[in-house]
């Protein structure tokens, strides 16, 4: 396989062929979900095989197109339970997590980048190290703290606090790297012009760091949108469940309702995929600029 980005180009056609095949294989699971969702049934199988299937029969069974197209799964998912309300809960929690997460990460990242103070390296390392804590086992202590001591069970705030905190370490690390690439002279000249530190931070630094802030927002949103076990444990009222909790009703324990699960998955995935697409032009530069000092 030729790989190079200099002027004597490799042939595009083999590259396209490879990419098309690979992309199709890579998104096959997604297509499969769409097929099951639109099939109107609950079975895992795309098509029922006759007892002695031929090659064509089997091929039909793996092609991602349902035997009959129906919207009944989607209808059931939205009407049999308050799925819309659950999505709203997820949206509120994820949005607030994003705001809080961005706030916490940008302030800390800015400090780590611009200031030299005792405990700076230790602080930064401790953020990285905290990623190594196995989080699943903190369920009970977190429950005691959030629901017991702070009394924030079954509220949006309880989840928002935990999610925002979870997303801090990676975002701070990334933001610091990005802030490091912004030249100090900009701040110097602004300070000479009489701007306060806060003005400099909000009006100059943040806009320049848009890619990294976008990635921070994306990560915080994903943390808030995709979490299951804490939401299921903290929330005591059905109206307060979030979307992942609702989805688990369909495939868990003794129920295997793949049709509803697929339909619900699509509904739940759309917002985060859209956000990804919207922010994807920032993804590349936001994640790497800090490391590759341009």
């Amino acid at each position, binding site marked *: 396989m030729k790989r190079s980005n200099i002027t004597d180009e490799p042939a595009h056609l083999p590259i*396209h062929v490879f990419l098309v095949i690979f992309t199709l294989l890579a998104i096959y699971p997604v297509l499969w979900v769409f097929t099951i969702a639109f099939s109107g049934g609950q079975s895992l199988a795309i098509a029922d095989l006759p007892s002695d299937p031929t090659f064509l029969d089997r091929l039909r069974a793996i092609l991602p197109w349902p035997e009959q197209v129906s919207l009944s799964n989607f209808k059931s998912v939205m009407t049999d339970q308050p799925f819309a309300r659950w999505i709203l809960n997820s949206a509120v929690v994820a949005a607030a997590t994003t705001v809080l997460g961005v706030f916490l990460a940008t302030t800390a990242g800015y400090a780590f980048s611009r200031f030299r103070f005792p405990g700076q390296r230790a602080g930064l390392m401790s953020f990285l190290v905290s990623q190594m804590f196995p989080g699943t086992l903190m369920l009970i202590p977190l429950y005691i703290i959030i629901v017991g001591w702070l009394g924030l069970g079954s509220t949006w705030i309880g989840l928002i606090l935990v999610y925002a905190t979870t997303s801090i370490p990676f975002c701070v690390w990334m933001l610091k790297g990005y802030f490091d690439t912004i030249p100090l002279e900009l701040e110097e000249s602004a300070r000479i012009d009489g701007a306060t530190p806060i003005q400099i931070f909000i009006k100059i630094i943040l806009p320049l760091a848009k890619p990294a802030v976008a990635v921070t927002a994306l990560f915080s949103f994903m943390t808030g949108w995709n979490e299951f076990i804490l939401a299921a444990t903290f929330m005591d009222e059905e109206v307060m469940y979030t979307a992942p909790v609702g989805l688990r009703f369909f495939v868990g324990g003794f129920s295997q309702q793949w049709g509803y699960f697929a339909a619900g998955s699509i509904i739940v995935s759309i917002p985060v995929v859209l956000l990804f697409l919207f922010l994807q032009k920032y993804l590349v530069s936001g994640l790497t600029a800090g490391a590759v000092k341009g």
Partner: protein
Amino acid sequence: MNLEAVKPRRLAIGLSLALLFAVGFGLWLQARGRAGLSAMVAERSAIVSLNALTEIVERVGLEGDSLQGAVARYVELHDGVASARVIRFQGIRMMASTAPEDTGEQAAPRKMAREEKPLYDLGQSLRAAVETNVQEGRAFKTEIDLQKLPAGGVGLAGPVAEGDKIVGAVLIEAIPSVYQVGGASWLQALLVLVVPILLLFALVKVVGDRPLVLLLLAALLLLVAVFLHGILGLEALHEERMAAEAHISQELTLTARGLATILAQEGLTASPPLEPADWDVDRFRRPLGLVTESAVDEQAVAVREAGEGRSYINLMIPVTVAALVLLGFVGLGAAGRTGAALSRHRVAYFYVMPAMVAMILLVFFPFSYGILLSFTNSNVYNTDQPLSDIWIGVENFVDILTDFELVKTTEDGRVFNYQNFYWTLGFTIIWTVTNVAVGVSVGLFLALILNTKGLVLKPIYRVLLILPWAIPNYITALIWQGMFHSQFGVINQVIQMFGGEGLSWFDSPFTAFITVLSTNGWLSFPFMMVISLGALQSIPNDLYEAARVDGATRWQQFKTITLPSLKPALVPAVIISVIWTFNQFNVIYLVSGGEPGGSTEILITEAYKIAFEQYRYGYAAAYSVVIFIILLTYGIWQNRVTGASEGV
């Protein structure tokens, strides 16, 4: 160490602070010891009263007519017992009661009222505890229940036996007279605090300006002061202890006499003879063997005191070390410098504070609790006990790390022990390495291809190839599990399409590993691809131009220009990816669930199962700490090797 900063004044301040801290802690411990002694006497007196009453009840019999009378007379005779009740399980009946409201219509014997349900449940749980202890052959559950009553006094409950079976319970409300234990000697404490300071100043005059010597002398003074204070305190405590035991011995005598009177009045034989020493038991109803009616067993008491003395020493050692550190900290001037630094950088600290506070409260604090838990034997049976009672030190860690039984030999051959820590560790390492390798190679390869200049449809490819990352991973994990379904799953359908037999993917460790590897590889390549793309795009074209002019082949260009430029971006990404993959709970849990037989568990899913299926919280916490230490070691090593965090 900045020895010039050592000045007599600083040393004096440091020494006073350290003394205050250490001696203060010692005083606190000793005061707690005295309070504990007082509480012990109260508890033992109450238990003696309870057991004496139980003795009468068992001799009269729950059905006996004179039960009510005997109980009433007992309460009369005993100042310390305010009221007593006897219940029988069969028929849920109150057989005797001296509570003021239980007279006339409500007089015992009668059926128990709704408000008395907690008493009945308590009695039954004591019965269950006795039966469990018999079955287990050891003191596992407490057989006497002791609760502080809101209105003052103590409520006790104990089982009543008939032959082998527990048929009822005795419940009393005791208001034990407060046993006064001698207070601390304030003069002693004052002396221990002041004298060393004076001595220090004297020594400064003698020794002169030799900082190191002064520092060491101050440390020595601290140690001597703490040691002396400890010795004197423990001595005093011993005196008090002997007096308390004598007091209990007297109580036994009095109670026995009272009981003998009641037995005579009720016309019951005094045989078998009363054994008052058997009334002095712990909450598991094991005789303490410390006192009898007439004497105190000094040796037995000494054994118990030795245990308490040891725990005093164990606690004072870290405290003294901390005091020494405090002395050094202040004495060497570090305290002053810290204060100045804090104030100088207050803007920075102000910016960092919100994130730090959130992290400390919601991440570091729960994890510290987890670390504490890992030194205990916490499990579902002892969650109500304070951590110090179930402390087992490093035993959990020893158990985890010394379990070398990787291969079990049975009659028919050798079988891998999948629950073994080293198997799980090995599997986790293999899992991490292969996943990161797959993710990096696939991601980098795709990035290189996509970076071809002028490639049409590039945005479309990029968008589609990010999808595996964008979709929530618990959704995709379940989807992949469905695709590997042995009957209806797509993978097997494809295999069968080409004439093969579908595999039972989750029935053998290797194929199960393939399932989770595919899932996680699929999930992780987009991240690597994006990082690589970003790094590739920032490599200036002129470098390649120059290399081409120099006649370098494409492969040489790749090795000398591309790879080194990618390193600063890829290395942190690899570190993060290693950490995330090592702890990737969702994929293993949802796709293979550790099947078959726990062979595809990684350390974190194993820890989860230990906590929630085996109810062993302390052991699971130790597992998590081991995971953490492994990752920490890796992070430090990786850092050193690549200087990655320097770049960041």
